[in-house]
């Protein structure tokens, strides 16, 4: 097995691909690379190169970097994406010289163009036939209109950007009205009005960030079902979960009347069910 993993890092250079022989002492690194690529990729499949410098459907700009790959098996894809064995996929590869017609590889990719077919951009690949048929796992956000499970990579990113990650319970939910501006300017009326609410979260443990004063925090969240806030968590009393919190930089009033910091929890994946605690802890332990 030969692994060719091309990262965007300038350390590797544009034409340098990291090739590791499938010798025993290289295997752990190969495994680590594959795992990292799997985590970063939204679409992973094994296939056989059928054309070089070609595309599988007309909407994709053809270049020397685009190849057509016949899918042998799907490892990972979003539910929304229609892709199955036998389909032809356009892959924009990092180094086209590494492929010939008939080359078999597992491709770690991100989506690019979706038309009558699928076009993807390579994040990395592992040469050789698929070791075994792997089950299709979900990836990406679109699972029949509902908010799908956030990927490890996206959850890691969310937590990295959070001031606090806490395990807690919502003890109260109440409406919050922004104080009137000192200028006397009226509040704005838009279809994107968030209709802010406050959740009082009793912190049971802090997974990231410092100690929480008083073990309770105020978390503001939009209650409105407008498109602007559709991905924002909505809190309910007695809800338990893991919450990624940021100091409030959105509502314009970042403290309570008593001067305590207020937090927001606005992104998809910022509020997770308590059943995700083990995954969250593992990701925080191995960033």
């Amino acid at each position: 097995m030969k692994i060719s993993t091309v990262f965007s890092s300038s350390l590797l250079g544009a034409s340098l691909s990291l090739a590791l022989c499938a010798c025993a002492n290289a295997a752990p690194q190969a495994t680590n690379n594959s795992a990292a690529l799997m985590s970063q990729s939204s679409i992973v499949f094994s296939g056989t190169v059928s054309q070089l410098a070609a595309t599988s459907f007309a909407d994709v700009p053809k270049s020397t970097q685009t190849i057509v790959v016949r899918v042998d098996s799907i490892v990972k894809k979003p539910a929304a994406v229609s892709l199955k064995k036998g389909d032809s996929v356009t892959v924009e590869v990092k180094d086209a010289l590494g492929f010939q017609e008939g080359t078999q590889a597992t491709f770690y990719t991100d989506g690019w163009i979706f038309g009558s077919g699928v076009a993807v951009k390579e994040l990395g690949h592992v040469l050789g036939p698929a070791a075994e048929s792997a089950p299709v796992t979900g990836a990406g956000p679109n699972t029949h209109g509902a908010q799908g499970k956030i990927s490890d990579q996206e959850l890691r990113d969310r937590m990295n950007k959070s001031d606090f990650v806490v395990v807690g319970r919502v003890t109260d939910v109440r409406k919050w009205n922004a104080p009137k501006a000192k200028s006397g300017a009226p509040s704005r009326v838009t279809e994107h009005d968030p209709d802010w609410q406050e959740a009082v979260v009793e912190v049971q443990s802090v997974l990231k960030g410092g100690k929480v004063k008083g073990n309770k925090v105020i978390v503001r969240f939009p209650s409105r079902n407008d498109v602007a806030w559709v991905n924002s968590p909505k809190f309910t009393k007695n809800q338990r979960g893991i919450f990624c919190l940021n100091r409030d930089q959105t509502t314009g009033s970042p403290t309570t009347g008593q001067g305590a910091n207020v937090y927001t929890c606005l992104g998809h994946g910022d509020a997770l069910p308590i059943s995700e605690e083990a995954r969250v802890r593992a990701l925080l332990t191995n960033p």
Partner: protein
Amino acid sequence: MKACASSWLRFPAFALPAARFALLTTLLSAVLLAPPFKTTARFFLTRAQAPPTPAIKVVNLIPASLSGESNQDSEPFLAIQSENPQVMVASAFTPNPFSMTGNAPVYVSQDGGKSWALNAITPVQHMTCDITHAMATGENHPRGDLHAGTLACASGITLDESESNDVALGATMNVQSTRGNVDQPFVRALGVSSGDRIYVGVNDFNQANGHTATIDVSVNGGATYRSIPIEMRNTAGQDGPSVRPAVANDGTVYAAFFGWRKFNGKTATSDVVVVRDDAAATGANPFRALKDPTDKLPGLLVVKKVAIPWSNAPALGQERIGSTLSIAVDPNHSGTVYVGWADKGSKGDIYTLHVRRSTDRGVTWSKTDLPHTTIHNATNVALAVANNGAVGFLYQQLSRGRWVTHLVQSHDGFMTSQDFVLATVPADQPVGQFLPYLGDYDYLLSVGNEFRGVFCANNAPDFANFPQGVTYQRAADFSAKTLNDGAGIAVPISIDPFYFSVPVIP
């Protein structure tokens, strides 16, 4: 019945030929019996005597490779590459299909709307919360030049005004201007030899004195923008969200907006205001050519102090209401301009559309609605004027539990008209995922001898829902009236964007 007969020949890719004959009776019955056709049946019978009508095209925009999606892809918009009308860009509240952090996508067609591909090129992460766009010229950019106004709503609301020189490449659009505290960008553009002129209507809360109706103007292809407030009167602290520019080929620029005079949380008492500039808004004090005779202030008051219901919750079926507005100018005769809006209307109505016309550059307007343009319980008005002067009037009406999408055309101010129902779908399905359900707007343009536009609707694959025929790219079984993911797994119905092309009446 010629229009129906001709459209009957266009079948979706997934339809079985055997189904065609069986569905003929259903389709013809639906066309003849559907309530919206009662008022227009006379015209259809008249047209049956005419030469064959060029094909009407209705296409579901969701590509085959995203057959598994069931997002609420509402609030559509459309841009056409004027130099190469085979190239078009459409948009909706469609999320990035593979990443929460990847760019929000647009739909690109390079074959005149027959097929569409999703390309994640906007500068907004995952999904926009407002997007409009326009393509001004094409001599240097055969698959551009696309100018977009987008709102990003991850935390706070940020406007990006951006550009792409090639919408098919997949490169992220270049952000040329950005700022916060604005709402509902609405982009129009005109290509001239010195560079694209771009006009972006925005409700800009940064403006002083509550004069929020604003046009962002660029006369250099977006390299620089100037924000021009177009409200000159006292407001209720702000104007309505919709600020709509319209541009004629001679450089005349109109804009319409709701001048909010009072607001009580449920109703905006509003003027419908039209401003005009005769020099492409390049002068020192643009948009002051029209003055209202009552107060001598810039901005002609087409109607005064109408009651416009405001609801950020479902009010018209599953749709919210409060700010549907459209303005269209004859591209070749800039003195003729149409404006359409919705207000409380007559007793018993939730929301009533109106269309009025000026033939003297906006100085005077029809005193009442143009004939047959007072539409009850309807929204999403979109107007356009074709090169031959025919006006197109797109709207969506809640009628007997269905959302019915109409395109009406007229040469004579709607004294006589042609009315095509493009879609008639159940209004209670699917259940909305968020607001807006169908969109705070849809869109209509003219190019050559076609009206082209976009609307959103329930995507159940049922011929009876699309009286002019329809083509689906996504996997659909019209016999069973079900969607699947391309591998046979059932997919629930949802709201999809639909593109259409209708020949302009001669």
